[in-house]
């Protein structure tokens, strides 16, 4: 086992990108994710890569689109307002089936908002975000180690399914330090020679595009993408479930909210209650099936988010009315403590008892 | 004598070739091509010098010129 270092979440992402063989970074500075471009601007030139500080987030995402179209592992990173600007390019990448990694270290919105942690971009991330009808892979780490592990996984899934992938974290996970064990993926990078642009030498020319004007062409393309999505949902949904028999209530939370909620849940369980915890690791694909199975056991849910109610809609869709879904949300700009979540859970249990 | 090959089907009858031919060798014909245009035709083959100005001015790459 490699020695652990004590690392910032943002740096863990940057290190994971290098470990995953990503040599190309395109980005524009924004708090609280600038550690990522700062780290990579130092490292990438030394590994034969390229670091480009773009003139805007719009340019950066399109540089990613360009590099991705040639099959090269590449990435961009930003925080909420910058991710909004990238939506155009993400839509084009999705429509053109170009892989690439987008990191969103969420801050508080709307607008310029603030730089404190938030989960206000859940809808934007999981519903496509840009125009059209598409999905991208969205992975939600909750520890610095997961910032590393899921970044590598995001590259792999993105290549495998030719879909843009997003690591959806926030200012808390980006700025905090935790022990990190670095590792190098053994899995060889996906062979992209069957579709990537490389110059039409000894083969037919290739077009990578999202414009389909022929009769029925676009619908056919979108049906094909939908098939992809269904495959991803079936194979790549990841969720951490800690629910025991006779569970009184299961808390559903992802990312930093899950960290805070976990402390409250641990405290209640130490006090003799039986509270479960469900933490989606992929938020698209969302673990609908897994949550529905818990609902079938009559377990009620409390969704905890650092927003005023986004993922809770997915939880409600999961249970399809089978059990009660409560919500504890904290608007962008406010960071709750474990004690406050403890109180929320206690209130719910009191009502039930 | 130069040889002018006209890919009539491609012609959109914009007339730039006719306009710029220094020897007035070209004209738009009365017939229709599959695109519904009156394609260009060589009406004065003896005067053609193979200068290829028609080919260069044509936006639709209708001509091939040999000499």
């Amino acid at each position, binding site marked *: 086992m490699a020695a652990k270092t*004590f690392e910032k979440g943002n740096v863990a992402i940057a290190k994971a990108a290098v470990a995953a063989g990503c040599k190309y970074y395109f980005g524009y500075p924004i708090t*609280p994710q600038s550690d990522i471009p700062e780290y990579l601007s130092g490292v990438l030139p030394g590994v034969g890569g390229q670091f480009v500080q773009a003139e805007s987030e719009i340019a950066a995402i399109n540089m990613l689109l360009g590099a991705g179209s040639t099959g090269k592992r590449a990435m961009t990173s930003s925080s909420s307002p910058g991710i909004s600007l990238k939506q155009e390019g993400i839509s084009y990448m999705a429509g053109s089936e170009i892989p690439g990694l987008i990191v969103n270290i969420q801050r508080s919105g709307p607008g310029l908002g603030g*730089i404190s942690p938030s989960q206000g971009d859940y809808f934007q991330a999981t519903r496509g975000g840009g125009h059209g009808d598409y999905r991208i892979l969205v992975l939600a780490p909750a520890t610095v180690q997961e910032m590393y592990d899921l970044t590598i996984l995001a590259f792999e899934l993105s290549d495998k399914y030719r879909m843009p992938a997003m690591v959806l974290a926030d*200012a808390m996970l980006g700025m905090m*330090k935790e022990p990190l064990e670095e590792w190098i993926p053994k899995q060889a990078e996906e062979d992209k020679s069957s579709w990537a642009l490389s110059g039409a030498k000894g083969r037919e020319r290739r077009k990578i595009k999202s414009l389909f004007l022929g009769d029925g062409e676009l619908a056919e393309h979108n049906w094909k993408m939908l098939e992809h999505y269904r495959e991803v949902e079936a194979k790549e949904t990841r969720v951490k479930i800690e629910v025991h028999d006779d569970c009184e209530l299961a808390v559903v939370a992802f990312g930093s909210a899950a*960290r805070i909620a*976990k*402390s409250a849940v641990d405290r209640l369980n130490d006090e003799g209650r039986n509270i479960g915890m469900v933490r989606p690791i992929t938020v698209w694909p969302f673990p609908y099936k897994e949550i529905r199975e818990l609902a079938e056991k009559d377990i009620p849910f409390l969704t905890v988010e650092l927003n005023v109610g986004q993922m809770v809609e997915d939880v409600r869709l999961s249970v399809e009315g089978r059990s009660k879904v409560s919500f504890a949300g904290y608007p962008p700009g406010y960071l709750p403590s474990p*004690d406050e979540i403890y109180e929320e859970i206690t209130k719910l249990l009191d009502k039930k008892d | 004598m130069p040889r002018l090959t006209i890919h009539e089907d491609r012609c959109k009858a914009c007339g730039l070739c006719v306009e710029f031919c220094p020897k007035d060798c070209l004209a738009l014909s009365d017939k229709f091509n599959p695109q519904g245009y009156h394609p260009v035709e060589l009406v004065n083959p003896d005067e053609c010098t193979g200068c290829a100005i028609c080919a260069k001015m044509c936006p639709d790459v209708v001509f091939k010129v040999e000499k």
Partner: protein
Amino acid sequence: MNHAVIMAGFGGQGILMIGNLFAIGALKQGLNCTFFPSYGVEMRGGTANCTVTISDHEVGSPVTSSPNGVVAMNEPSVAKFAPRIGEGGLLLINTSMAPDNDFSKDGVEVIRLPCNQIADELGNIKLASMVALGAYAGRCGVVELKFLEEALPEVLPQKLHKLIPSNIEALRAGAKRADKQD
């Protein structure tokens, strides 16, 4: 065991440095830990604070509203964080920067230590935060001093490594003075 401590003071007092040192010391002792800094506007001249959470199991929340301890390097930090300390908690007040503070709370042990003066006596005023950390660590006992000393090379930038002995001295002096207060 779960121990959350908030360290706070003016920017430039070495707050984030001692927070890091405490965390890495805990790591060296075989414990789990998280370090969550305040950042952004506060880094530019105002107050700085960080939360270090140490646990013998997986660390849950990296933030807390009721810390087990507070290291307050100046007056505003006492006012802001000390009232949040939970039962059985520990507060270190740097009396050099908060001379008249008389904060007290039931169930909270208070160490009052003139960290700047002690550092000055050691020959380097910049060691004040190390004195404070030594005092806090020595008293709360969550992380042994020897692990903090071991962690120093990882926290101090290379160019300050020649100052490791004086940093060790400051840690030990803090621990010793805090001990004497009983």
